[in-house]
């Protein structure tokens, strides 16, 4: 590994936010996860939050490895469960800003129930979902986000199941903030992350990212550059779009943007307000910063 003194250029400013002793990472060349992590590190760099009070939780899978590379209090939990883990973490220590960083299979397949309930409760957390349309760590199987007709190892004749539209689901469940980007929209992803980090309540940022080794190869879509070209040609920014219109078809248009930005009471605010009203001065408020 090259050390800093041998480098002609100064160190990358995001290095302070990563565990450089764990680099190189495990992701394939052409994978989009690293780009999303860079955007996140950039959002942390620009953030005015006390980063000692920001925690990150991942599940299992390719994106599940993110927690291990980000220099925050970081938790690599079980498959599908990072949102439940984050719920406990946040409620135990309400001064934390908790970020869940995981993949589409983890968050919406095995972990779907936790997602809908955390959004319903408006649990104060930022969920960043890297959507690569397949289960990549296990070798490219069909996922709840796989577009119809895409070919994967457990859909060897093409997928015929209807996929989730993640922003529509998050909206319906009550999230405070919902955005979708591709990993080509680096600055916009960073901006969304900054907005979500500064927002109370449940946020979902979906970032569509290429899986070159499995999804692209199996579907003969070319390399990373071909996929980014596809994103460039087919992503349409439409802020505030009706979330019912956000389905993604195989190699079709992808509507991106910020769709939802609203204020519903968070779980803790709701709990404190309600119990104070119901119980009066006997209630001991919880996690309220004085």
């Amino acid at each position, binding site marked *: 590994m090259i050390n800093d003194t041998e480098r002609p250029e100064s160190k990358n400013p995001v290095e302070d936010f990563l*565990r450089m002793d*764990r680099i190189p990472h495990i992701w394939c060349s052409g994978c989009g996860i690293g780009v999303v992590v860079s955007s996140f590190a950039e959002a942390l760099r620009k953030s005015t939050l006390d980063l*000692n*009070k920001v*925690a990150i*939780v991942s599940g299992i899978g390719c994106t599940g490895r993110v*927690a*291990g590379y980000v*220099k*925050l*209090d*970081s*938790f*690599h*939990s*079980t498959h599908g*469960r990072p949102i*439940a*883990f*984050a*719920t*406990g*973490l*946040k*409620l*135990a*220590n309400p*001064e*934390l800003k908790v970020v869940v960083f995981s993949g589409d299979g983890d968050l919406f397949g095995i972990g779907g*129930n*936790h997602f809908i*309930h955390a959004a319903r409760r408006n649990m104060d957390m930022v969920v960043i979902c890297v959507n690569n349309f397949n289960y990549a760590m296990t070798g490219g199987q069909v996922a709840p986000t796989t577009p119809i007709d895409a070919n994967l190892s457990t859909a060897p004749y093409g997928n015929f199941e209807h996929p989730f539209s993640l922003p529509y689901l998050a909206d319906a469940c009550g999230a405070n903030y919902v955005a979708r980007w591709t990993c080509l929209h680096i600055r916009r992803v960073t901006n969304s992350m900054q907005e979500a980090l500064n927002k109370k309540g449940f946020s979902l940022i979906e970032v569509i990212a290429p899986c070159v080794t499995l999804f692209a190869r199996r579907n003969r879509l070319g390399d990373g550059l071909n996929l980014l070209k596809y994103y460039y040609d087919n992503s349409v920014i439409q802020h505030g779009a009706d979330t019912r219109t956000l389905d993604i078809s195989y190699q079709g248009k992808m509507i991106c943007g910020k769709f939802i930005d609203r204020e519903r009471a968070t*779980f803790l605010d709701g*709990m404190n307000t309600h*119990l104070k009203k119901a*119980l009066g001065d*006997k*209630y*001991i408020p*919880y*996690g309220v910063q004085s």
Partner: protein
Amino acid sequence: MKKVKADPKGVLTGSHYLDGDFAIAEGALAAGCRFFAGYPITPSTETAERFAERIPFVGGVFIQMEDEIASITALIGASWGGRKVMTVTSGPGFSLMMENIGLACMMETPLIIANVQRGGPSTGLPTLVGQGDMMQARWGSHGDYQIIALSPDSPQECFDLTIRAFNLSEIYRVPVFIMTDECVGHMHEKVVIPPADQIEVVDRKWYEGPKEKYLPYKPDKDGIPFMVKAGDGYRFHTTGLTHDERGYPVINAECQDQCVRHLSEKILKNADKIGHYEEDQIDNAEIVVVSYGITSRVAYRAVQLARKAGIKVGTLRLVTVWPFPEKRIQQLARSVKAFVVPELNLGQIAKEVERFAAGRVPTIPVTHCGGWVHDPDDILKAIKEAAQ
């Protein structure tokens, strides 16, 4: 490890008439539990209800999660957020928790699960007693690990052992199970809750050294690593993957050996300190009845009748079931004629007794599939048979 007095806010000092489920909730509050995540399941729900009713006046959080998987996982998160945490469940919910019990063991996370056992398998007998989850408590998650399991036989002991469970969990950084049952859970008896200054609670060993030197999985002299909580500026990492002292994943056989043996040894090496057994007339006993939970109370009747009939019967009640009192069984196997083990399952702990009696003396199981407690006569019959 820091011994402190209980926070009086959580201690409902006085003499009460409580069922075992309620007593567990009171024990948790007295021990300093301020986070409870649970999912309703008969016959354990009353503990969650009691906690939900009481916590607004104590200061803390009750959350009803979407399922038991979410409940146990939220506990792990909340424990790393610095709280003492618990949940309560019964067989089907306990089954759902298994994977993340493994995560809690791997991350060395203190947490408490009370399992108010009912008849199984599957939905089984939701409203009726069983003790069929004893081996599941020991082995339910995949891989090798050790946990601690306690078995109360009364509402008073539900209260007392819940405090003990929290203290053990904090000391050894391990999940501790309160393996009670529907009978004890729903039995109302007098429960005396002492004043807060007479309740000793233990807090986990918080790291206080220089931040840059903190290693989340470096065992201290006593074998237990120091803990920190999220938000204190350590920027630490923890994972369910096999990991080194830094908490970083290392995927090879050497690290696996170190990591996994540590999880077992930190409990087994302290088995004598953790173990807690109640013995009666065991010194000259020819027969020893080994039992736990509600079955101990049923067996007591049989033991009394046997003594009246002139049989020298001693009793060994497993207040701590896991780690198992293997040394004590080995010792007794040298002096007694037989062990009699009644339990509301088909011989889960009896097999363990048999294993450590190691063929020296017979072990006679008195099995029962649950749904009701034993008829004391069945236990008496086994004692008489053993005495012959």
